[in-house]
């Protein structure tokens, strides 16, 4: 065997003990340290070389390779492979061929892990596979507990690997059986003429993680620490030790210690340079010519004579850069992909539908800035007229392949991903992996269980915990009282959760990132089946794929694109109009009025609480300003301090068109002109670095990349010195000014949009607002049918639509379709599919029966058609869907109890007799509150009374959302409402923003940290709140009103009497009866119904999406 540079690999000088068996946290729920932590500890302990051998995977290998290179440690790659009989062998990569074989072996081991969709089977590989893929690998016989230790098996390994590439592995985990086992293994090795090698089977980089490793083992087996004792490691011998300590541990086996260095010297593979990946099309010599022809053919279609010259020049420049970078094949591949998407779209949409007018998908991200992408159909934004520069996407010093992100409607994307696998082959195309990691709430739940803490208390602490905070002790104290978290098992929970924070928990799939290769991808990285049938994953996440130089295409599903397509289709059906969204007027006054007044509930990107507040102040009046608007509420501009200056300068410019926004340095004027001297777009970070500091495009892109990666603080800091020095050299900027500009740039390190991406999203924001303004019912209907999506849950969308006059019609067994629909009068009817607990097949069968025999005349007929089981029919009755047949819900339930449906019994279906159900006894009518609870319990949407409309008569001194608009700044107010959203942005220093809704509108609440700490459980969990606070109407806020909260209480009807001090009271029964005949809530009846808390509609809650 020779090394990659033609030299014998044995010349590599390695001395002392080398750790050849080490697990990271990518041995999921077994290893307890990240690769970079292992590397850091190894370097500190005096190791010069370290191997990473995770269980059946190389998930962390690229991260390990880069971390090791950064600290001057030599990485060895490998894996601990599980054999068919559950025993382990340790495989180490000796050459590029060895890496290929390891990847293929791991792919084989995982091939059948998803044969049964419900369970994840453990990966396993047979000895024959090992023999077939032995080249370039060194095999060790495995760990002390599950290694290959019998002579026949070791002989089979010897046949596969030969004596030079097989070692008998000795370990000393300080078990009572160590000496006997190692003597026996030494004897076996001697007998077979093999050498022994010592390994440490490391599972943690420091003692502090040894306890976490115990907890992980218990968690993996779904046991407590107590009951998992036989499965856990008996001591902390699996923590990384210094080479000297390891040599001392194996003092009885000095040859095995010396052999570690000999094996390490035998291994000569560098993952960062020896991968051999090539993306499709790179070898195609005609690609450049074909790409040029394709683009030029379309240039004349897209540009008028006036703009042709500029467009042609830009095209020539881009083609030159693309040629120089060797990327023509890459662009043709994407074009090919889009053509495939076009075929898929035709199949999915059908040829004669209104949505067939729409393109199959649209670009997002920086690729939108490319004229080549515009001409090949990958982007729908003209980069010339939108003023998009290509630098962020394409520049001559590009260090890696640019990303192209494509958005598709969900239904098209589902089919497209399958077709891509088929088109490029299952061994050449796969999705990118992601690794969901431990955050506080999951850690509290899972590690609390392992510690045997009381489940109810664990849940209470978890629900009140801040997802991204590591202060579990505070969470425990808030939930359970002071001093609770400071001792015993609760203190251990705090300590274990802190250690677990950020460690990968398991494998998942990236939302749409696909890797495509010319040579089989399994030669470069193992591929494993994904949980979804027909999909597969590479063993690397997006950062590792980028480091590997893989071509990654993001095929993303965008709910709003699906909603827009649905809307267009519904408009065609209800009004007979065919809407082509690319040809709508882009200066529609009504649309911009709605945007400026923040009437944007449900539209794309500009609908959130924060965006609405901002819209009233920025008042976008054209697509360019909307492009900025889309980008502004992002961590990058917020942390960079750009938001308020931009908004203020925009206002001043509106008041005085001659106003000149300040700019820190003349060199930045052209770069930041559009955003009024602030950094809003990601590309501006690069442009500032180039204009102000003289960075080359490649250097500037390096800075941008350092900012967009996780754990990037150190990388960004390295750029600071170059930035300050560059500013002095390039424009003569004094250090203080350079530091100020750097702070603007470094503040942007959080997530921000490239301008091209914002332009693409801004356009969709406009188009969706246009649909909302001109086709309100159809747009609402589309949103309701595409849930979950967007910021607002269906209940809020419905209430907001009602407030602007759209008629909402309740679910009805004879009038509703499976999905929501727009009826002839323009009302939106809730679909039967909204009734939870009724299977879609049952709904389809009911509708089919209704279509065949006409509308159901009574419940006996409905029950007799045997299309739905009894619980489903009862759920439909309780949702109010049968009110037209029975009068009300109670009567419908009673009648269904008599008119039993056909029942499935052994031997067939027992048909129901179509007997008359007779008259129901006198049943008490449901009160308004009970109807509301029934609505929420079944459809999750209330189209009748708003909760606050029912409670309002009993709440005195409570201001409505409408009245707030008329009160002066600083007024003390009490408001109440149903919670729609709770947010605690990382950028807001602990402030929580809540949005509550009453029957007349919404109210923004600002909850300062001390109030949040006092009322954390109310803020986080209560669906209905009563708030006291101070009204704030900021100057130049465009009419924005907030309530700064001082106290917060949960509001449940049974509590109403307690709010006497707040001016609220519950009338006694007599009062209730005389109140215009209304049925007021009665605490006992409501308690019996479970209260609102049990059935509250889901809300946007703390970045965890919608939940109850």
């Amino acid at each position, binding site marked *: 065997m020779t090394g990659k540079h033609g030299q014998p690999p044995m010349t590599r000088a390695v001395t002392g003990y080398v750790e050849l068996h080490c697990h990271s946290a990518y041995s999921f729920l077994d290893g307890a340290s990240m690769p970079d932590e292992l590397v850091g500890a190894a370097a500190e302990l005096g190791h010069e070389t370290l191997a990473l051998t995770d269980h059946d995977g190389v998930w962390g290998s690229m991260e390990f390779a880069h971390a090791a290179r950064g600290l001057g440690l030599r990485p060895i790659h490998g894996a601990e492979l599980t054999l068919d009989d559950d025993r382990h062998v340790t495989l180490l990569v000796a050459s590029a061929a060895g890496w290929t074989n390891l990847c293929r072996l791991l792919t084989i081991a995982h091939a059948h892990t998803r044969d049964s969709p419900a369970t994840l089977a453990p990966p396993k590989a047979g000895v024959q596979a090992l023999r077939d893929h032995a080249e370039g690998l060194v095999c060790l016989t495995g760990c002390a507990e599950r290694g290959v230790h019998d002579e026949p098996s070791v002989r089979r390994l010897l046949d596969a690997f030969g004596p030079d590439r097989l070692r008998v592995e000795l370990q000393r985990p300080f078990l009572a059986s160590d000496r006997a086992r190692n003597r026996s293994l030494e004897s076996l090795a001697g007998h077979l003429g093999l050498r022994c090698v010592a390994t440490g089977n490391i599972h943690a980089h420091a003692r502090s993680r040894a306890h976490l490793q115990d907890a992980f083992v218990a968690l993996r087996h779904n046991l407590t620490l107590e009951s998992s004792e036989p499965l856990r490691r*008996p001591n902390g011998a699996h923590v990384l030790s210094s080479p000297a300590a390891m040599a001392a541990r194996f003092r009885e086996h000095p040859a095995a210690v010396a052999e570690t260095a000999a094996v390490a010297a035998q291994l000569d593979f560098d993952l960062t340079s020896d991968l051999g990946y090539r993306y499709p099309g790179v070898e195609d010599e005609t690609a450049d010519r074909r790409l040029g022809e394709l683009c030029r053919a379309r240039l004349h279609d897209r540009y008028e004579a006036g703009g042709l010259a500029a467009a042609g020049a830009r095209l020539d420049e881009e083609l030159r850069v693309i040629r120089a970078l060797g990327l023509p094949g890459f662009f043709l591949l994407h074009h090919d992909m889009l053509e495939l998407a076009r075929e898929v779209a035709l199949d999915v949409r059908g040829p004669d539908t209104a949505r067939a007018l729409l393109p199959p998908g649209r670009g997002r991200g920086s690729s939108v800035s490319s004229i080549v992408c515009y001409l090949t159909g990958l982007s729908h934004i003209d980069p010339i007229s939108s003023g998009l520069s290509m630098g962020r996407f394409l520049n001559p010093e590009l260090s890696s392949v640019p990303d192209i992100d494509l958005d598709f409607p969900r239904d098209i994307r589902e089919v497209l991903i399958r077709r891509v696998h088929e088109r490029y082959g299952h061994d050449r195309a796969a999705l990118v992996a992601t690794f969901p990691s431990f955050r506080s709430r999951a850690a509290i739940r899972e590690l609390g269980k392992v510690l045997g803490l009381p489940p109810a208390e664990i849940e209470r602490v978890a629900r009140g915990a801040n997802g991204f905070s590591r202060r579990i002790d505070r969470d425990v104290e808030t939930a359970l009282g002071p001093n609770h978290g400071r001792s015993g098992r609760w203190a251990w929970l705090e300590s274990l959760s802190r250690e677990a924070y950020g460690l990968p928990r398991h494998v998942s799939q990236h939302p749409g990132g696909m890797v495509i290769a010319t040579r089989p991808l399994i030669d470069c990285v193992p591929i494993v089946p994904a949980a979804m049938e027909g999909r597969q994953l590479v063993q690397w996440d997006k950062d590792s794929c980028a480091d590997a130089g893989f071509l990654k295409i993001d095929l993303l599903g965008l709910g709003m694109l699906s909603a827009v397509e649905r809307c267009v289709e519904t408009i065609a059906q209800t009004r007979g109009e065919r809407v082509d969204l690319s040809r709508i007027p882009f200066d529609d006054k009504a649309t911009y009025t709605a945007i400026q007044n923040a009437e944007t509930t449900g539209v794309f990107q500009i609908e959130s609480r924060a965006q609405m507040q901002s819209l009233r102040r920025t008042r976008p009046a054209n697509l360019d300003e909307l492009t900025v608007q889309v980008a502004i509420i992002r961590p990058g501009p917020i942390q960079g301090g750009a938001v308020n200056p931009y908004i203020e300068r925009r206002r001043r410019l509106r008041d005085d068109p001659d106003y000149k926004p300040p700019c820190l340095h003349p060199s930045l004027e052209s770069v930041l002109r559009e955003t009024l001297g602030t950094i809003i777009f990601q590309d501006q970070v690069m442009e500032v670095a180039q204009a102000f500091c003289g960075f080359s495009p490649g250097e500037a892109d390096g800075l941008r990349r350092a900012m967009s990666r996780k754990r990037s603080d150190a990388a960004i800091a390295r750029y600071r010195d170059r930035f300050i020095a560059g500013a002095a050299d390039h424009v003569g900027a004094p250090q203080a000014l350079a530091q100020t500009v750097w702070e603007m740039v470094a503040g942007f390190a959080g997530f921000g949009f490239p301008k091209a991406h914002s332009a693409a999203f801004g356009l969709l924001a406009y188009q969706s607002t246009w649909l909302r303004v001109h086709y309100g019912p159809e747009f609402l209907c589309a949103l309701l049918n595409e849930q979950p999506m967007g910021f607002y849950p269906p209940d809020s969308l419905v209430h907001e639509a009602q407030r602007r006059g759209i008629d909402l019609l309740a679910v009805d067994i004879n009038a509703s379709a499976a999905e929501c629909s727009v009826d002839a009068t323009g009302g939106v009817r809730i679909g039967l599919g909204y009734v939870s607990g009724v299977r879609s097949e049952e709904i389809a069968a009911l509708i089919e029966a209704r279509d065949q025999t006409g509308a159901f005349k009574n419940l006996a007929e409905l029950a007799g058609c045997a299309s739905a089981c009894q619980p489903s029919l009862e759920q439909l009755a309780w949702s109010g869907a049968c009110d037209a047949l029975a009068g009300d819900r109670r009567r419908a339930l009673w009648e269904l109890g008599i008119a039993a449906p056909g029942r499935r019994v052994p031997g067939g279906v027992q048909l129901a007799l179509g007997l008359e159900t007779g008259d129901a006894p006198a049943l008490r009518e449901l009160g308004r509150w009970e109807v509301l609870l029934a609505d929420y319990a079944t459809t999750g949407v209330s189209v009748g009374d708003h909760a606050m409309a029912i409670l309002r008569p009993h709440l005195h001194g409570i201001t409505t959302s409408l009245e707030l608009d008329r009160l002066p700044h600083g007024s003390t107010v009490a408001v109440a409402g149903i919670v729609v959203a709770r947010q605690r942005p990382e950028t807001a220093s602990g402030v929580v923003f809540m949005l509550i809704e009453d029957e007349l509108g919404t109210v923004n609440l600002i909850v300062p940290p001390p109030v949040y700490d006092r009322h954390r459980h109310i803020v986080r969990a209560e669906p209905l709140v009563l708030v006291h606070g101070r009204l704030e109407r900021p100057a130049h806020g465009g009419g924005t009103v907030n309530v700064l909260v001082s106290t917060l209480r949960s509001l449940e009807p049974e509590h109403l009497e307690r709010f006497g001090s707040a001016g609220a009271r519950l009338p006694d029964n007599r009062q209730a009866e005389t109140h215009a005949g209304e049925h007021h809530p009665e605490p006992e009846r409501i308690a019996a119904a479970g209260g609102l808390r049990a059935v509250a509609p889901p809300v946007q809650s703390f970045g965890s999406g919608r939940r109850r």
Partner: protein
Amino acid sequence: MKPVRVIKPAVGTRRLDDPRTARVLVDGDGTPTDVDGQPVAHVRESWLIEDRWWTDQPLHRRYWELVSQSGRDIVVFRDLLGGSWFRHR
């Protein structure tokens, strides 16, 4: 009021295999050389137990299986939390 009945353990009973304190001499590496006056001829094995760390009674012991010069098999451990030596058999 009824007098409280106190249940006392039977005199002279103890759990089987309960460790008893031992007098152990060690060399510079911490390896036992003498247990309760019996010189150690040979170390058969040594192992570590670290458990119950999450409870009020954590356990951290270094065990030694020894052969005395008289040929007797002895198991002793050092409680690494308290520092004392105990004998199992």
